[in-house]
C-alpha cells in the first residue's frame, strides 16, 4: 500500500521554478521561452483529467509589507501548498487544487487561511479563482469570490472595478473616457482596437486574467537553513530555565520543518554572553529527525553537560543540514519483544548517549587481518541499529579463526578477552616476570614476528601466565635486547 509521502504530495511533481496557468485556448508560446513553457504545459497536462483546471487562492493584505515580512508570510503559507508565489508588496498567490482534499473543501481551507493570518495579526481578503490574476484581482477588490468553474470566470469578474488590475493611472483615465470602469466593460471592447490604443501589455494581462494565455509566476523558494535568535529578558544561567527559553525556538523549528517536509541532521545552539565568546552546543543526529520534542529533549541532555562561562543573554538555534524526512515505520511488536525488531530504539539510544557523553562516546569493534595484536582490531562507528539479515550465519574472516570441521589441526590461537592499549612493563627476577608476586608461565611460547615493512616491527614470544591470585595473563618477552617482559592482555 502506498500512502502519500506528504499531505501536499501531488503538486510537487510540477516544476519548481516557474508555473503557468492552463492555456486552454491561448496563443502558442513565444519561441524564445518555447522549451520552458512546453515543459510547463506538459506538466500541467499531467494533472488527472477529473481536475483539469488549477485553483488559485489570491490573498490581499490590508497593509503593504516589506519583502522580508512577505517572505515570512509566504513561508507560513507553505503549510497549505508547496506552490506559493509572492506578489509584492501586499499579495500572495497559492495554488490550492491539490490541497482541497486535505483541508476538506474550500470553506475549511478559507477559514484555515484566514485563521493563519489572524494569528499573525494581519488583515487579509482571500478569493479563489482558476487563474492567479483573477484570484488576486477579486481579493484586491475586497470580494471573497469562490470561482471554481472556469466557464463562470468571465461572468463573475465582470463586476470588479478596473483598479483591481493596478494598471497605470493614465490607462485607467483613458478607459474611463470611453466609459469602461469595470473588468466586464474592458473585456467587451474589441481586441484589435484595444491593443492599438493601449499597447499589447494590458491585453496580455487580460488574457492572463481570463485564462486565454498562461502566466508565468515565480514560485517562492523558502530559505534552506533555519536560524532564529531569541534575546532573553534577563540573563539566565540555570539549565532548566535555558531549556524553557529555547522552547519558542523549537516551536518555530517545528513549523519550519513541517512546511518543508524536512528533517535536520545536525542542530546547533549558540549561547551569547555579555563578555565571553559565545558557547556552542552542537547536536549531531544519527538520522534526519523532525520530531522537535525529541530534539528539545536531546538538546536538554546536552545542556546538562554544558559548562557556561557566564550567564546567557541570547540564544540562537541554527539548523543547516536539512534532509527530506521520511516518517518512521511502525512495528506491531513492542520494542524488545521476541519477534519484534529493534526498530528505532537503537538510533534513539545512540543519539541519547552521544548527546550526553559526546560525539565519540559510542564505538563498534572490528577485526583486521593482522598478526600483530595491537593492530588486529580497530574501533569503528556505532554498529547499525538493525542487523543486516544473515549476519549471524556469516563466517568470520579472521586469520586462524575460521569456522568449520577442518580446523582441528589449525585451532584458533588462544587470545585474551582484554587487551592493554600499551603493553605494561613487568619486573623480572631470575629470568621470570613478576607482577605483585611471581608469575607462573603455563604455555609454550608463541612467537609473533611481523611488521618490518611499516616501521612498527615486533618480535615477541607470548606466554600465558598465572599470577598468585589465579588471574590468567598474556605476557610477552621481547626477542631483542634487553629482552624485557611485558603484560599485554588479561584472559578475563
Amino acid at each position: 500500500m502506498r500512502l502519500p509521502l506528504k499531505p501536499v504530495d501531488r503538486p510537487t511533481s510540477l516544476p519548481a521554478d516557474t508555473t503557468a496557468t492552463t492555456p486552454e485556448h491561448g496563443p502558442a508560446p513565444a519561441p524564445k521561452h518555447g522549451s520552458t513553457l512546453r515543459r510547463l504545459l506538459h506538466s500541467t497536462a499531467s494533472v488527472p483529467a477529473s481536475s483539469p483546471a488549477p485553483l488559485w487562492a489570491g490573498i490581499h493584505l490590508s497593509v503593504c509589507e516589506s519583502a522580508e515580512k512577505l517572505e515570512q508570510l509566504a513561508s507560513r503559507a507553505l503549510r497549505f501548498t508547496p506552490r506559493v508565489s509572492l506578489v509584492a508588496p501586499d499579495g500572495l498567490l497559492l495554488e490550492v487544487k491539490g490541497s482541497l482534499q486535505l483541508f476538506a473543501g474550500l470553506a475549511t481551507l478559507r477559514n484555515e487561511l484566514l485563521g493563519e493570518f489572524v494569528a499573525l495579526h494581519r488583515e487579509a481578503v482571500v478569493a479563489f479563482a482558476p487563474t492567479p490574476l483573477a484570484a488576486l484581482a477579486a481579493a484586491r477588490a475586497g470580494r471573497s469570490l469562490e470561482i471554481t468553474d472556469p466557464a463562470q470566470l468571465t461572468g463573475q469578474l465582470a463586476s470588479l472595478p478596473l483598479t483591481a488590475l493596478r494598471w497605470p493611472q493614465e490607462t485607467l483615465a483613458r478607459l474611463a473616457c470611453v466609459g469602461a470602469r469595470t473588468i466586464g466593460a474592458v473585456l467587451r471592447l474589441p481586441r484589435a482596437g484595444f491593443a492599438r490604443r493601449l499597447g499589447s501589455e494590458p491585453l496580455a494581462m487580460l488574457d492572463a486574467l481570463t485564462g486565454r494565455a498562461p502566466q508565468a509566476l515565480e514560485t517562492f523558494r523558502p530559505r534552506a537553513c533555519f536560524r532564529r535568535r531569541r534575546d532573553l529578558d534577563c540573563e539566565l544561567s540555570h539549565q532548566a530555565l535555558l531549556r524553557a527559553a529555547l522552547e519558542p525556538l523549537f516551536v518555530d523549528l517545528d513549523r519550519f520543518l513541517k512546511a518543508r517536509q524536512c528533517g535536520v541532521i545536525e542542530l546547533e545552539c549558540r549561547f551569547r554572553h555579555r563578555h565571553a565568546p559565545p558557547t556552542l552546543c552542537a547536536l549531531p543526529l544519527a538520522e534526519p529527525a523532525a520530531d522537535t520534542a525529541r530534539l528539545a529533549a536531546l538538546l536538554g541532555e546536552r545542556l546538562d553537560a554544558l559548562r557556561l562561562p557566564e550567564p546567557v543573554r541570547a540564544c540562537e538555534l541554527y539548523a543547516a543540514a536539512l534532509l527530506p524526512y521520511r516518517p518512521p515505520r511502525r512495528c506491531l511488536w513492542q520494542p524488545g519483544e521476541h519477534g519484534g525488531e529493534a526498530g528505532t530504539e537503537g538510533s534513539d539510544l545512540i543519539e541519547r548517549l552521544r548527546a550526553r557523553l559526546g560525539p565519540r562516546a559510542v564505538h563498534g569493534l572490528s577485526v583486521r587481518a593482522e598478526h600483530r595484536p595491537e593492530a588486529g582490531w580497530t574501533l569503528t562507528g556505532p554498529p547499525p541499529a538493525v542487523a543486516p539479515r544473515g549476519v549471524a550465519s556469516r563466517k568470520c574472516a579472521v586469520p586462524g579463526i575460521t569456522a568449520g570441521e577442518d580446523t582441528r589441526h589449525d585451532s584458533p590461537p588462544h587470545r585474551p578477552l582484554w587487551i592493554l592499549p600499551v603493553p605494561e612493563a613487568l619486573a623480572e627476577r631470575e629470568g621470570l616476570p613478576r607482577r605483585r608476586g611471581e608469575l607462573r608461565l603455563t604455555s609454550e611460547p608463541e612467537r609473533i614476528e611481523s611488521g618490518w615493512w611499516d616501521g612498527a616491527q615486533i618480535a615477541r614470544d607470548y606466554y600465558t601466565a598465572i599470577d598468585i591470585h589465579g588471574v590468567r595473563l598474556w605476557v610477552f618477552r621481547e626477542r631483542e635486547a634487553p629482552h624485557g617482559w611485558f603484560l599485554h592482555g588479561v584472559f578475563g
Partner: protein
Amino acid sequence: MTADDPRLVRLLEHPAIWRGAGAAQRSGLSTGFVALDEQLPGGGWPRSGLIEILVARFGSGELSLLMPALAALTRAAVPRWCVWVDPPLMPFAPALASQGIVLERVAVVSGAHPLWTFEQALGSGACDAALAWARRPQPRELRRLQLAAERGHTLGVLFRPRRALRQPSAAVLRLGLEPAGDGVRVTLLKGRSTRRGAIDLPWPGS
C-alpha cells in the same frame, strides 16, 4: 505448526507467557556450562533482569563465563545490541570473534556517567545484554537498574568487587566467582531457587 517449530518456540519465550513450572524451568539463557545451567534458576541466565557477578580480582574469569551466552545472543535470529559500558580495559576484538560473538552487534560506550549509560542501555529496548563495571553503586541505583532491565527486556550484568557481598542488592541473581585450578569456582549467592553452594567449572580445552 508443531511444538518444535522454531517460530512457536520463539513466541513462547515471551516473558509474559506463563507455561507452568516444567516449561518455566527452561526459560533461561543457557550459560554454555551444563553444571552451571543445572544450578541456576530457570536453567540459565535470566533473559531480562540485573545479575551481579562478584569477583575478588579483575580478570578472574568472569568474562569467559559469559562468553557462550553472549555469543548465542548476538547470533539470535533478530539480534539486538550487546553494550559494554565503560569497560576497564579494551575488549580484544579477535578474541571476541573467536569466541563466536558477532562484532556487528557489539557497542562499546565510554564516558563520564557509566551508571546513567548503563540504565539507558538497559531500559532502551535496543539491547539484548549490557555489561557494566560499577565502582560503588548505591542500593537505590541498583533498584533502578533492575527496573530498567525488566522494562527493556535486557540482561544486565554488573561486575563488582567481592567486598560488595555485604551490601543488599536488588539483582535477581548474584554470583561469587574465584579462580580455581584450570577453571573457576562459582558460588550462587542469591537467586530464585533453593539451591546454594559452589561448583567448579573447568575451562573448555584446558
